[in-house]
């Protein structure tokens, strides 16, 4: 099975939380990612940067998790922004049109700066 593992780590920069995804965000790992994003939102951490530098693959189940979190945030000051994705992942975002829903940044620093 092409699944496997996804490790999720979180770092805090003021009111922004950087979530690094390392591995594959697919059907098998989506529920873990969803749980950690929703617990961040539940704890009032509304500004989230997903660092996708080590994200190898994202399936529609993975896109659904990001979209669910984004929809949960609504139109307030909080947002989920993505940074440092590989050309392959960026291509998936372009193909599915998700690059029109999420703000994508070349690196984490730019994504962090965009919140201030």
């Amino acid at each position, binding site marked *: *099975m*092409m*699944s496997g593992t996804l490790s999720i780590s979180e770092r805090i920069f003021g009111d922004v939380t950087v979530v690094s995804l390392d591995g594959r965000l697919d*059907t098998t790992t989506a529920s873990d990612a969803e749980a950690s994003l929703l617990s961040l939102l539940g704890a009032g951490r509304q500004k989230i940067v997903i660092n996708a530098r080590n994200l190898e693959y994202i*399936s*529609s*189940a993975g*896109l*659904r*998790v*990001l*979209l*669910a*979190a*984004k*929809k949960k945030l609504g139109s307030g000051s909080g947002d989920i922004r993505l940074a440092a994705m590989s050309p392959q992942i960026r291509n998936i975002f372009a*193909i*599915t*049109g*998700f690059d*029109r*829903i999420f703000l994508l940044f070349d690196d984490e620093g730019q994504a962090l700066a965009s919140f201030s």
Partner: protein
Amino acid sequence: MNPEYLGYFIVLFQMMAVIVILAYFVTRITYFSEVLSGIFTWKNQILLTLFFGLVSIYGTESGISILGAPINIRDLGPMVGGLSCGPIVGCGAGIIGGIYRMTLGGFTCTACTLATILAGFFAGAIYLLNHRRFVGWQLAVAFAVIMEGIHMGIVLLVSKPFSQAFELVSIVAAPMILVNAAGMLVFALIIGNLIAERRTKEERDRYGAELERKKAELQVARTIQESLLPRTLPTLPGMELAAKALPATEVGGDFYDTIPLSGDSSAMLIGDVSGKGVPAALFLSLSRTVVRANTGWHDRSWEVIRDSNKMIAADAASGMFITLFFGVLDFRKRQLTYVNAGHNPPLLVHADATSEELAITGIALGALDSADYEERMVSLSAGDVIVLYTDGVTEAVNDRDEQFGTVRLEGIVRDAHTRPAENILDRILQEIAAFTGDTPQFDDITLMVVKVTSP
């Protein structure tokens, strides 16, 4: 060996054999199982009290005199009763065994009666402290050792004259502790065995029930999905149409459809819901109905998809979305007008084997309620082949974790493009099967092939 000692061993061995039988017996009666399940009734409490009380009386009666000192396992019944069934049974059995001891008299009468009642009381207290569970054999044996030590202490404190009590205790203490600890070990192991057996069975039952529920859910999801697929495909003038959906074990939410339109045209759709199981199947059902309804209300494909998206987005909980390719085939003009809402771009292979992709013209439905959709048109000519597919095709994997991919798919279609639609479809499915081998697939594989024939 001293024949006197051999006699003691035989008697002790007999006692242990009786204990094994008693322990086996009690673990087979339903009242004991009830208590282990946390069900306490007057009936099971009274009957178990009587049982462990009788064990205590047996412990007194079976006692032997070693070097003139009585060795017995009177405390064992109340201890086991209390540890496994709680304070009522423990104290009850202790009182029964204690009263019986009292009738026998002797200078240790008060001390032994008191010790037996206390044994049941302490055992019951340990049961409560351990959250109404049996403590396991290690702690049970340790308790038996300590309790018999207390028993000896009470004899020393209460029985008069002290010198006689001291002489007795110095002889019987070690064998009493040993025999009661051994009896407790036998009981505890057999009870522990029963508890472990019941836990295994419970886990198996729970696992079985969970499996049944999952199977039923899969069946429901599959039934919904299958009911949404067209039973037969229409005959299109000047075109051939073939389609196939192979659901994965965990149904993925793929679908395809054709909708006859007024005039000389027909819509064809292929889509994939982001999710699996019953939620995906229900979301698919909603989306299909919405798109079908909008197809009747609008003339332009982009309007159909724009309004469908608004309705689906309003209803899309937990981030669900559906990728959809919506194409209208005009048989007379030989044109395909399409909107591609985030779906894997279908492949158009021309009669001269050149190919192009029918690219995305908007985002997947349900993701963004204000999304705009563009409509595109391609002219078709005889020999053109359009292959619509879901990501289960290009993301089918082999045992080396390689994906089937669009390059392979395109190669096959180019190779087979002169054949009828049905043949091209079969050929793709055969190649996927050969590529994946025995590797299980986790997504539905859905394909639709349109071939433009001579007018």
